[in-house]
């Protein structure tokens, strides 16, 4: 992928994945990697920050004799995700209009 993912967009991607279901570090990284080519080392600081900001929370599940930490989105996270979705729709429209020119007059659309 040619385009680099800004940190806000990366946050939004993580929250989107968690919005669908709770998951743990390794799977979360693989899921985000399917969409964006990020390096493995990128995700931990993002998760840590989102957790400190209260947008996601963690809980532990016992598995094979140890504990596995799951990440879950919070109400705060869902609110933030909504805002990201709105910002994205707006942003996408503007970029598309610029890059592709827009057959229909994008500026007049709702």
């Amino acid at each position, binding site marked *: 992928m040619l385009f680099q993912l800004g940190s806000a967009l990366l946050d939004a991607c993580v929250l989107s994945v968690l919005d669908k279901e709770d998951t743990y570090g390794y799977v979360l990284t693989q899921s985000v990697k399917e969409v964006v080519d990020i390096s493995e*080392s990128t995700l931990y600081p993002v998760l840590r920050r989102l957790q400190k900001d209260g947008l996601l929370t963690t809980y532990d599940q016992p598995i094979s004799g140890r504990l*596995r930490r799951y990440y879950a989105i919070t109400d705060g996270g869902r609110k933030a995700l909504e805002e990201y979705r709105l910002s994205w729709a707006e942003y996408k429209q503007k970029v598309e209009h610029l890059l592709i020119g827009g057959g229909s007059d994008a500026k007049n659309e709702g």
Partner: protein
Amino acid sequence: MRRREFLTRLEAALVTLPYEERQAALRYYEEYLLDAGEENEAEAIAELGAPEALADKIVRESRAYAKESAKEQTAPDQSGAEKLNSFSNIELDLANASVTLFKGEAYSIALDFPEGYPLPEVGVRDNTLYVKEKKFAHFSFFGFRSFVFVKKSEVAITLPDAQYERFSFDMVNGSLKVPALRVRELKAESVNGGITVDGVSGERLSLNSVNGKLSASDIAMTDGCKCSTVNGGIGLSGSIRGKVHADAVNGGIHIAIPLSGKDYNLRLSTVSGSVRVNGQKMSKSFNVQNNSANSVHADTVNGGIQVEFESGTIVI
């Protein structure tokens, strides 16, 4: 590189992070590599890159976040707070209250005590803030202490960033939290309650507890640090010069000093637990005499001891 080696190197490279942050990061990556499964582990480790580079990323993010949130962190609602004259020292003596210091614009104190509970005496004289509980309250420890008042008493002291001389906290039931302030001598004692000091810089630090965890993270001291607890762990990190002394009975000790280990004499011992220095496991005790003015002495009965210095500066 194997998982063990990766994590050991990562732990060493994260020495400058506060204890809790470091543990969180290590836990994340240990789980990550375990969850990758045996088949994918080697690939996952390769993709993570050098542990030192990864640590650098983590430390930067953590610092950047700390800076951001420090800017935003406001002292508690000042409307109930009492303004104070300026002071360079604090002498606090409370039996049942938790104390938190905040960095703010001016000097003030807010007391949040349950109804009917006698308020402590507060006053500033001789450049010192005195907060003293009236004598009879000490009896409440076993006596009439109410089981109905679940809400604990809180004292919030706000003070600006300045060079302070001496803070002395003497508490019985209650925890203490001190943010990044510059104070030459900080002495704190709590019988039942943990003490957390974060980013403090000065000359001497002394923390004491019976039932409580002691945590001094990211500190800078020039004349030593003494931490002592019975039931609770001890976590110390930062540039601490002079005599560093940590002792616990039931609790692990973790000391991380991002300076050269060659500049310290070491005397570490545990009865049931292990001693690790820069990630390497020793037997139940470890002594190194470098004829230095700096030293780290750590003793515990039930608990492990982990000491870290700058990578590669410990000769075993």
